């Protein structure tokens, strides 16, 4: 087991390394004039360094004046020591900015995850138990509809109806106008109020996937021989479903949950952008579209590391939950 984990970690590190190289190569396609203009704009900001100093610093850290490979190794040298540089867009160290925004995304995604699990797993099981019934068709259609909805359209529709027509929620932002005057408890409620629409958006979008996944896996389990055996020996249906079928369905569900890890910490880029929630997704969207190389590189590497970690966790949790896997 330890050997397996070590092998997996080394492989993950390699993949992250090459993934970062790809990202770096793509970013380096930005025209040089853009970087010079960026430095000029940065130097115009209040309290910023001078143009030449900035350009020199950028070149030193990203090797922008040399070849792509040389520049990349240069960057890796700094990144390994935890120095991800200074964000161009936000004018503060990348890691500091990251720490200040990440928790909004985590809270939103945690809420979404809990709601999603509470709604989807029971419905998926129900649909599988009554295959080809009206319930099953409804679940399938709703699930497919959830998959078919583009994030931006759903978010815009929700904003149109709940913010503009009904006026229940604010259109944008994480805090209201009077946030500063509120007591701590009111502030918490205010933030919660602003998170309703983003959470609902994310939930509707993810419902479909999990529901179908549960249904498919449950169907597979229900068709298995040991379920027939359980029924044949006269176990009550409740026990068959809860003890024999559902526990076996849990294995793929655990791996599904661990795949959600990158989502959880990586932020929902489009939803956050549409609701202007200052989480990691919206912040990195701004950084990417405005060519903030330090922040973009950090964000991509962060997601890549998360993906690898989630894969490793999925593998390990498989082994923990399923003795058959452990044997191999």
């Amino acid at each position, binding site marked *: 087991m330890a050997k397996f984990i070590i092998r997996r970690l080394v492989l993950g590190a390699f993949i992250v390394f090459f993934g970062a190289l790809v990202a770096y190569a793509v970013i380096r396609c930005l025209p040089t004039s853009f970087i010079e203009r960026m430095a000029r704009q940065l130097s115009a900001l209040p309290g910023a360094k001078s143009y030449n100093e900035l350009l020199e610093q950028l070149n030193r850290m990203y090797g922008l004046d040399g070849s792509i490979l040389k520049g990349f190794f240069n960057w890796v040298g700094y990144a390994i020591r935890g120095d991800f540089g200074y964000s161009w867009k936000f004018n503060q160290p990348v890691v500091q900015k990251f720490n200040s925004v990440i928790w909004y995304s985590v809270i939103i995604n945690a809420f979404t995850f809990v709601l999603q699990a509470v709604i989807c797993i029971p419905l998926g099981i129900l649909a599988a138990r009554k295959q080809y019934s009206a319930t099953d068709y409804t679940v399938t259609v709703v699930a497919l509809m959830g998959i078919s909805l583009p994030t931006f*359209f759903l978010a815009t529709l929700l904003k149109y109806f709940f913010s503009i027509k009904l006026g229940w929620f604010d259109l944008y932002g994480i805090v209201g106008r009077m946030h500063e005057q509120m007591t701590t408890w009111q502030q918490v409620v205010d933030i919660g109020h602003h998170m309703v629409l983003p959470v609902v958006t994310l939930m509707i979008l993810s419902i479909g996937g999990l529901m179908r996944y549960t249904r498919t896996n449950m*169907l597979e389990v229900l068709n298995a021989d040991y379920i027939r055996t359980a029924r044949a020996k006269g176990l009550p249906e409740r026990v068959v479903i809860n003890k024999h079928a559902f526990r076996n369905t849990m294995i793929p569900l655990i791996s599904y949950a661990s795949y959600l890890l990158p989502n959880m910490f990586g932020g929902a880029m489009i939803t956050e952008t549409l609701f202007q929630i200052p989480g990691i997704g919206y912040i990195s969207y701004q950084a990417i579209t405005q060519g903030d190389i330090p922040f973009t590189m950090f964000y991509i590497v962060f997601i890549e590391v998360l993906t690898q970690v989630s894969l490793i966790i999925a593998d390990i949790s498989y082994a923990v939950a399923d003795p058959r896997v452990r044997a191999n």
Partner: protein
Amino acid sequence: METRNKGSFGTQKLDDERRVRVLSPGMLVFKRFVRNKLAITGLVILIVMFAFSFLGGLFSPYTQAQVFKHDEAIMKEYATCMLNTDLRYTVRKGAEFPDAAHAQAALAITQGNPSFTYGDRTYSLVKEGEDFYTIGDAIKIVEARTLANKFSLSAVKDSAFTISPAFAAAAQTAITAGAAQFKADGDVYTVVNAGKTSAIYHVESIALATKNVYDPYEEQYKDIATDFGFRYASELALSKGKTQFSFDGANYSYETIDGDIVVSKDENGTAVAVCTISDMLVSSKANDIFLSSQEKSLIRNAIRAKETEFVIQDAAGANVEYRIDRVNQTYTVRTLTESRVITMYEFPTAAHLLGTDSNGMDVMTRLMYGGRISLMVGFVVVFLETFLGIVMGGISGYFGGWIDTAIMRFVDLFNCIPFYPIVMIIGTVMDKMEIDPIKRIFILMAVLGILGWTSIARVVRGQILSLREQDFMVATEATGIRVSRKIFKHLVPNVMPLLIVQATMSLGGIIITEATLSFLGLGVKYPLASWGSIINAATNVHIMTNYWFIWIPAGMLIVLTVLGFNFVGDGLRDAFDPKMKR
């Protein structure tokens, strides 16, 4: 009936093909597919969408970038009218009196100075009447000396001026009295005193300043009305309270009508109006409007009467209403004018079934053309993905070993790269490089294809790993056919059902991805349309709130199309793989 049936049975053998209906595997799949209501619904939706996008453009009377305009009557500025409180300068032809010197002149007038300098030149200023001044080039002609009460005059050498007795007498009285100006022989002279010596300047007037405004009646009188000599003669006559004057051999007379003074020329006994003199400056606001003197005096009269509206008959005899708005000393005359404007945000009508957008383009037509791009991007990307997936997955699954490991690590790498951030970076890079919109679509398709092939490669590899152990593969081994043929002729067709399902399902995903990118402004760009870029208008809260017809239909089309693909894909999966049925 019965007998005929009997007869037909009689001619058939037991194993006759017509008695035992054998369905081909394809037919079985088809039958199962057709029985699935959801799948058929999806298929119908897709057919409608394709017809809408690819045939709709042919039937639409408009093109995708056609801008609609209409005539609209808007209150447009027609003329402005100003109470003239400033001195206005008329410069003699050929003389030089730069605009910058006007300020110096105004200063000298308010301070009552007889002369002023601008640049290296000295100008003299003569007050000829109330608010009527002439400005002249002062030329030194005579120097006067008073030495021991003895007064002497000497002409400046270059001036070619001869001192007449009357001039000498006038000069002496003026200088002893300390006057700044004196008159002699009908001319005005200026004295600049410097102790015992005084310089006498003759003034050749080069400009005049007056507050009166001259408006010619006809185009042909424009020259005369702006002429320095004419104005000088007229102003002189006015300041002396005369009712007529002569200039250039013609006689002119004044007549006061409605507060304006009309100057008429005497032509063989009949008086012809030449111009009006007033204290108000009326000028047209547009290049294509010529205001005649009558119109100008009408406007002036309306303003004097403090009216806010008045009516003028136009050339066709129709009454045109004008409105007057006052801001301080400026009056603006407005009138309803027909002008061509872009038909923005028009609500749905029979001509434009879904109205027009912010560029004045037909939303319905743009939806049709946008559908073409959205669907085309979807198909091209899926084709590319599947092609790459089959080749990579096929090679990986068939050869196994280190090739398999290498390709699978490659797949891991691609899976690891976060999709949206990378595509957004590419979009930003394309923005900064200012790539042509059509080229952009191709790059977008290539990028989506290259980033999306991994899942198909995995499916193909997994299937081939199990297929290659089967007997028919041993048979291909025995017959000794080429490796490429083994992979693509014998293995891949067996993976086809799964691939078709996978491709159909991922089509929906790609359409959403493309729409999302276009919505964020990183995908398809104006003037080309895609469904996503049409909804992009809703990022503007004003449009989102007031013009539902611009963004909701596009969103519905995306949802329906993707839903169609997902229904069909789901139906195909069930049809190909009936094992899931209990």
